[in-house]
C-alpha cells in the first residue's frame, strides 16, 4: 500500500493549499463562475413570477435543450435533527462539504468495503463535475416537514408482500432475476420519473422537436419522448417501466404527467397506480427548476412534492451501453456458485 | 347436376391442330386498362396425357378416336375396386364429384400434350441430368421410407405444393381449377389446390437476384398482342417438374381463343436435365366458380394418421418378432 500513502501525502499538500469549502462550492459553479453560488440556489419561488424568459425553439417552445445534471448533495428527505427548511449559504456550503467528505471517506484496505475501484480515478465522484446547488435542507418541499408522508395500511401491506416475494425467490445471487434491476442494467435511478440524482453520470440531454420533448438519461441511455400535442393517455393495459408521459406547456413551464407504470421499478415503494406530475421551468440560462409531485393514494396518505434543480453541464453523453458488457453479472453469479461449492466441500471435509 | 351437364355438353374438341392464335378471328374482350381479358374461373382438367402413350403413333386422334379414348379413361378412373383389398381402402371419388368427368374438362384431339419433340415424349436426359437424378434418389433413400417421418413423405401429402400451380400449370387430377384476376400491371392466377397464387408483374421489371428462389420460381409477364407470355426462373428445385432442376426456365403463352377457352402453351428449357427444350400445348376451359378455400395443411389429419399408423405397425412387428424369438 506504499503507493496509496504517497498519493495521500501529495493530496495533503494540495488540501492544505486550498480551502476545501471554496474548492467544492466553486467546482459546482463550473459553468458560471462569475455568478455567486447563492444566486441560482435560492429556493425557487413560483416560476411565473420570475423575470427570466427562456429562449425559444424555432417552433416557439421555451428552449430547454442542452445537457443538464441533477447531481446534488441535498437529500430527498430532511435529515433528522435539521429543523429549518432553508440553509443560509454558509450552512449550505458546510453541508455540502460534510456530504462530500462522507462520500470521499477512505475505506480500510483488506476490508470488504475496500473491494471496489476508486471512483475518483474515473471522475465519478459528484464533486468532479457540475452539481446542482440548493439552499434547501431537503428536496421535499411538501409536506413542510420535508419527509415522505406516512405510508397507508395498503402501502405497508404491499411492502410486506414485496419483501416476502423477494424472500421466496431466494438469495440475491441465486439467479440473475434476483439481483437488483440496476445491477442488471434494466433501469437506474436517473430515468424516473421523477428524475433523480443517479449517484454518478446524473446527466440528461434534452432535445425538442415540433410537438415533442425528448429527455435522454445518460445511465442506460433511457429515453423519454414526451408528446406535447394534447393526446390522451394510452389504454391502461399498456404499462411501462418509466410509465407513459404526456406533456403540455403552461406558459414558461413544461408540465408532464406520467401514469401507466408497470410497478416493477417502484419509486419509494409506490404502486403501479403512481401518478407523477413534473414541472420544468427554465429560470436562468444555466438552470432548470424541476419540481415533481407524486400521487399514489394506494401508498401515501397524501401527495408530496419535491424540488430538485437541474444545472447546465457539459456534454457529450457517451453511449452508456450497460447490458452489453455487464460482465459483473456473470462474475457475481459465478462467484456465488464458487462460494457454494467451497462451502459444500468444507462441509464434506469436516464430516 | 349443372356440372354434369356442362361436362357432357362441352363436347366440342379443342381444335388443337387449328392455326395459331395470332391469325384467329377471335379477339378477346378487354379489361378497363386494355389488356386482353383472361379473367374468370378456368380448368385445365384433361384426360390427355402429357406424353404420348406407347403404341400410339399419330399426333392427332380423329374426333371419334378421341371420344373413345376419353370414354376409356373415364371408365378406368371410375373402375370399381375390389372390396377387402388394399386398393379398396378409400372414399368414393364420385360421391364427392371429384372424378374429372363430373365437371368441365378440356377436350383435345391430341394424343399427347407434348407437341415438341414430334414424338410426343420428353427428350432424353443429359449426363448431368442422370447424375442429378441418381443423387436425388440417394437423398430420398437417406430420408428413409415414405412414412418414416413427415419430411420423407410426398410434397402433396404434406400439403406443400400440388401439381396444379406449376409452372407449368398441370392437371391436378381433381380441383384443377384456376381463378384469373387482372389489374393494371398484374395478372394473378389462383390455383385452387392449396390456394397457390402466382402474381405476375407485367411492367418489364428484371428477374430478382439468383439467390431469391421459390417453389414456383419467380415469374415475369408481358403481352405480345393477344398473348400473355410468362417467363419463370429462380426455382428452388424442391418440386421438380418431371425431373427438372432449379435451372429450369418455363415460358408460358396464354391466348384467349374463345369466350370459353384459353389456349395454354408452354416450353421447358432446362439444359441441366434435358438434351433439348420441349413444348406442350393444352387449354384452359371456362368453368364455374367459386374456388372455396383449400386450406390443406391446417386440416391434414392424414399425415398425422399415416405416421401414427406406421409407428404402430412397427411396434406390432417388433412385438411379434420378440414373441417369435421367445418361442
Amino acid at each position, binding site marked *: 500500500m506504499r503507493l496509496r500513502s504517497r498519493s495521500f501525502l501529495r493530496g495533503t499538500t494540495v488540501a492544505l493549499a486550498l480551502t476545501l469549502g471554496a*474548492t467544492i462550492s466553486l467546482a459546482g459553479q463550473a459553468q458560471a463562475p462569475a455568478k455567486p453560488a447563492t444566486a441560482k440556489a435560492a429556493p425557487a419561488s413560483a416560476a411565473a413570477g420570475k423575470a427570466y424568459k427562456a429562449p425559444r425553439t424555432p417552433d416557439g417552445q421555451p428552449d430547454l435543450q442542452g445537457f443538464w445534471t441533477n447531481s446534488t448533495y441535498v437529500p430527498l428527505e430532511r435529515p433528522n435533527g435539521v429543523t429549518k427548511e432553508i440553509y443560509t449559504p454558509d450552512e449550505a456550503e458546510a453541508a455540502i462539504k460534510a456530504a462530500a467528505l462522507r462520500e470521499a471517506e477512505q475505506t480500510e484496505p483488506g476490508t470488504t468495503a475496500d473491494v471496489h475501484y476508486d471512483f475518483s480515478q474515473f471522475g465519478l465522484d459528484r464533486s*468532479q463535475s457540475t452539481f446542482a446547488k440548493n439552499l434547501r435542507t431537503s428536496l421535499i418541499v411538501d409536506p413542510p416537514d420535508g419527509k415522505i408522508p406516512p405510508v397507508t395500511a395498503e402501502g405497508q401491506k404491499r411492502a410486506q408482500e414485496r419483501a416476502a416475494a423477494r424472500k421466496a425467490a431466494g438469495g440475491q445471487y441465486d439467479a440473475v432475476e434476483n439481483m437488483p434491476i440496476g445491477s442488471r442494467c434494466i433501469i437506474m435511478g436517473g430515468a424516473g420519473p421523477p428524475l433523480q440524482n443517479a449517484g454518478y453520470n446524473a446527466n440528461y440531454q434534452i432535445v425538442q422537436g415540433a410537438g415533442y420533448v425528448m429527455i435522454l438519461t445518460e445511465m442506460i441511455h433511457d429515453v423519454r419522448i414526451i408528446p406535447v400535442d394534447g393526446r390522451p393517455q394510452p389504454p391502461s393495459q399498456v404499462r411501462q417501466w418509466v410509465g407513459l408521459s404526456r406533456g403540455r406547456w403552461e406558459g414558461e413551464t413544461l408540465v408532464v404527467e406520467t401514469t401507466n407504470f408497470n410497478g416493477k421499478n417502484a419509486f419509494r415503494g409506490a404502486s403501479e397506480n403512481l401518478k407523477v406530475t413534473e414541472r420544468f421551468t427554465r429560470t436562468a440560462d444555466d438552470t432548470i427548476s424541476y419540481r415533481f409531485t407524486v400521487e399514489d393514494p394506494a401508498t401515501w396518505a397524501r401527495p408530496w412534492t419535491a424540488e430538485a434543480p437541474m444545472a447546465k453541464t457539459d456534454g457529450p453523453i457517451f453511449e452508456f*451501453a450497460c447490458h452489453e458488457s455487464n460482465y459483473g453479472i456473470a462474475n457475481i453469479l459465478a462467484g456465488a456458485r464458487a462460494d457454494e461449492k467451497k462451502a459444500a466441500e468444507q462441509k464434506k471435509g469436516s464430516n | 347436376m349443372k356440372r354434369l351437364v356442362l361436362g357432357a355438353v362441352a363436347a366440342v374438341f379443342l381444335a388443337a391442330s387449328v392455326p395459331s392464335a395470332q391469325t384467329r378471328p377471335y379477339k378477346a374482350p378487354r379489361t378497363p386498362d386494355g389488356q386482353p381479358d383472361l379473367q374468370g374461373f378456368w380448368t385445365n382438367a384433361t384426360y390427355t396425357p402429357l406424353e404420348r402413350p406407347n403404341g400410339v403413333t399419330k399426333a392427332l386422334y380423329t374426333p371419334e378416336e378421341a371420344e373413345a379414348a376419353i370414354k376409356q379413361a373415364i371408365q378406368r378412373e371410375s373402375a370399381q375396386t375390389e372390396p377387402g383389398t388394399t386398393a379398396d381402402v378409400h372414399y368414393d371419388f364420385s360421391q364427392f364429384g371429384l372424378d374429372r368427368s363430373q365437371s368441365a374438362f378440356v377436350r383435345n384431339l391430341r394424343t399427347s400434350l407434348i407437341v415438341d419433340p414430334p414424338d410426343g415424349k420428353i427428350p432424353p436426359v443429359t449426363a448431368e441430368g442422370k447424375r442429378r437424378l441418381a443423387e436425388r434418389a440417394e437423398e430420398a433413400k437417406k430420408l428413409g421410407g415414405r412414412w418414416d417421418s413427415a419430411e420423407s413423405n410426398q410434397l402433396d401429402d404434406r400439403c406443400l405444393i400440388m401439381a396444379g400451380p406449376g409452372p407449368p400449370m398441370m392437371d391436378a387430377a381433381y380441383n384443377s381449377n384456376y381463378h384469373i384476376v387482372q389489374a393494371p400491371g398484374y395478372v394473378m392466377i389462383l390455383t385452387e389446390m392449396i390456394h397457390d397464387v402466382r402474381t405476375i408483374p407485367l411492367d418489364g421489371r428484371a428477374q430478382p437476384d439468383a439467390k431469391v428462389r421459390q417453389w414456383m420460381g419467380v415469374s415475369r409477364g408481358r403481352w405480345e398482342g393477344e398473348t400473355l407470355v410468362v417467363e419463370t426462373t429462380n426455382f428452388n428445385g424442391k418440386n421438380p417438374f418431371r425431373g427438372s432442376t432449379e435451372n429450369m426456365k418455363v415460358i408460358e403463352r396464354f391466348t384467349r381463343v374463345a369466350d370459353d377457352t384459353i389456349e395454354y402453351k408452354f416450353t421447358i428449357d432446362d439444359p441441366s436435365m434435358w438434351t433439348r427444350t420441349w413444348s406442350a400445348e393444352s387449354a384452359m376451359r371456362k368453368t364455374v366458380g367459386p374456388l372455396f378455400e383449400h386450406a390443406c395443411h391446417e386440416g391434414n389429419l392424414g399425415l398425422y394418421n399415416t405416421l401414427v399408423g406406421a409407428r404402430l405397425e412397427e411396434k406390432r412387428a417388433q412385438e411379434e418378432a420378440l414373441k417369435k424369438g421367445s418361442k
Partner: protein
Amino acid sequence: MRMKLAIAVAVVAVLLGVTQVRAHHAFAAEFDVNKPLNLKGTLIKWEMVNPHSWFHIGVKDKDGKVHTWMVEGGSPNQLIRMGVTKNTVPVGTELVVEGYQAKDGTEKAVGRNFVLADGKRLFLGGSAGGPTDPVKVK
C-alpha cells in the same frame, strides 16, 4: 479555472478515497476481499464500456508466460466529458494494479488503484498536469 478547481477537488477525493455507496453493483459479491493482489503488466486493451470499463493487462508469471487479466475500472463516460479518449491510455502502457481477484477464481479483478510504472498514480479524471497534480497519461 474550472479545470484547476476540479483537480483540487479530485485530489481531495483521491486522498480520501470514495466509498462504494454509489456503486452500480455490490463489488464484494463479485470480488473476493480475501484475495488481494498486485499485478504488474502492460495494457493490451482498455474496453471503454459501461457499466464499468475493463483493462486487459498482460501479466507475466514466473515462467515468463503472459496471462491476460481483466481488471474492472469505472464508467468511462465522465472521463470522456473531461476529454479522455481511446487514445489517452495507449496499448503497451505499463501498469501496476492493486486490487482484489474475482470470487470465481478466474483471472479477473477489480482495480482498487491503478498506478503507472514510474510510481505515479494513473489518474484519468480532469487533470491538466502540474507538479502536484496526479498524473495524466498522454
